[in-house]
């Protein structure tokens, strides 16, 4: 039975489990520290991102052609950080489009994202002083079924002959349907998917692709708001930390794996064994990232009112 003092530790902190929590807190600290630095007036550098420079070019082209700009904030099941970020970028696109009286179409897969997008885009038009140009039907809910949504958006692209399309957010199998349909009518395309499996499809079919965290860097790049720029630099610090850990891990593993050992650690307990070559699971890095949890029994009183659910314990 486990001593009472160890019950306080918490399941997620057992063995080397604390390391993951510590790293997450460290990343959060980096982000918050850099937001503070940026707010304090520190000039922070962001590298050039081609896909984001193309946004103005794409809207300009749509304005010249007098055709709409189509935006899709992905297929998030609920309103999450990815959908919010996509709508934030679309707010920038809509602002430029509003200035040039260019029609827009924003197609939503999720009703929650639809309401958020509608509010945000309406605010953009109001803040530009052109509230009369805002068409409430320009932000629309299409369907919350993947391929019904794909068919609906593809139909819109073909019927409206959009000049520029922006596919930013969570995309799955339908990504290529969108990209190829827009390509078939010659629309300029800027795309990004947080799903790594879909990024190659966008790279193959679209003009500009934001890869990985460039998607999250977009707001900072476009607006240079201190909070966003600071957050981006915090992410860069975190990436440097990860790179450092990869290098150290490679070195540690390379050195350790050459040697012999007479100790083995199983389920968090060290025991002496006959000499053998070091295995991958014996290395320091492996043990740091893979907590070995021994099975423990904690005896607790049973609730007198507890009624086991039917089938429980079978």
């Amino acid at each position, binding site marked *: 039975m486990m001593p009472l003092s160890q019950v306080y*530790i918490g399941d997620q902190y057992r063995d080397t489990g604390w390391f993951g929590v510590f790293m997450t807190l460290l990343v959060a600290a980096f982000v918050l520290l850099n937001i503070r630095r940026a707010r304090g007036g520190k000039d922070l550098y962001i590298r050039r991102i081609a896909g984001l420079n193309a946004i103005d070019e794409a809207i300009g082209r749509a304005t010249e052609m007098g055709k709409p700009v189509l935006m899709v904030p992905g297929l998030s099941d609920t309103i999450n950080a990815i959908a919010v970020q996509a709508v934030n970028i679309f707010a920038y696109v809509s602002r430029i489009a509003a200035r040039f009286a260019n029609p827009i179409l924003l197609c939503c897969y999720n009703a929650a994202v639809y309401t958020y997008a509608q509010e945000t885009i309406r605010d953009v038009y109001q803040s530009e002083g052109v509230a009369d140009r805002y068409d409430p039907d320009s932000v629309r809910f299409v369907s919350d079924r993947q391929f019904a949504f794909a068919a609906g958006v593809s139909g819109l692209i073909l019927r409206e002959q959009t000049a520029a399309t922006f596919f930013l957010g969570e995309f799955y199998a339908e990504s290529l349907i969108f990209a190829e349909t827009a390509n078939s009518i010659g629309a300029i395309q800027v795309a990004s998917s947080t799903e*790594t499996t879909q990024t190659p499809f966008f790279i193959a079919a679209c003009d500009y692709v934001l890869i990985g965290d460039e998607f999250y860097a*977009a707001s900072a790049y476009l607006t240079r708001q201190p*909070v*966003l720029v600071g957050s981006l630099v915090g*992410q860069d610090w975190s990436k440097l930390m990860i790179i450092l850990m990869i290098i150290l891990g490679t070195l540690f593993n390379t050195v350790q794996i050459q040697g012999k050992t007479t100790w083995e650690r199983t389920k968090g307990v060290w025991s002496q064994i006959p000499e053998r070559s070091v295995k991958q699971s014996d290395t320091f890095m492996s043990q740091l990232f893979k907590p070995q949890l021994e099975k423990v029994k904690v005896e*607790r009183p049973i609730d007198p009112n507890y009624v086991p659910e039917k089938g429980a314990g079978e």
Partner: protein
Amino acid sequence: MIPLLQAQAPATSFWSEAFNSSELWTKLIITLVVGLVVMVGLLYAPIRARKPIIAFFTFISGAYWVLLYLWPKPIDRQPGEMPLNTVETVSFWLADSNNVVVSFTQILTGFLLGLGIFSLLKIHLTKITKGHKDAFFSIVLLVSMGLMIWFGYADWFDRLGERGAMLDNRDNWGFTQYGRDFLFEGLLQQMDAAMFSVIAFYILSAAYRAFRVRSVEATILLSAALLVLLSLMGAVSFVWDENVKSIANGNPFILNFQLTEVAQWIRNTFQTSSIRGIQFGVGLGALAMGLRLWLSLEKPGSGS
């Protein structure tokens, strides 16, 4: 598996009351009243006060998840067990609340789906009444939506009733069940499958464009793709590998040039590491974004 994941909320926890009990009804009424008060309060709140109210609720909601992540989780918790101390009392309470808090999102989504349907109706009814050139498609959409809702609900009600268990057998089906089956399995699922299969042709056209030799990068991409494609063709990889083996004559270095080895090397060395690199970036971005949203540092539409 971690025992916590298997744990069931005990029947007497704060988050679950017995069906139709007075405690359940009291909690439902209190929740409804609080919800309505918050909603009315937000509607009538001065515009300047809305931001701090939203920031407060966002912080409280986010704090729950942060607490759930950081607070020591109970070790070896079994159903029906009582906490040993204050730390465990909080962790039990947090773990039991998880399902309830998650269902808040579903309730909100349910309300918001109504707004989505309103948007669809508004756009397509306007098209129909104004005699838009694509009004026919709008009629098809609205009729399909109406039929699917009617047959879906009618079938659901039938299955809730006394005949529910009998409806698992197709012989007992009536008009409603055949209607739902035709619309859902016969039409919708088939059309979904048709849309999905279109992707195969799009892959071909996209790959053709992407793999044309236009630049050094495109050539490298083409070569790598060709090698991986060929390695998946059994006959080609067999002939290639056998030839390499005969030339190598046991030389381990030359054996590396077997097609399957080269393809595996491309996957393991380039593909996997690139994907992991991208995933690190995406994960960090999501964490930073979540942090900004939680602390209300991110303004709505801050991309503009």
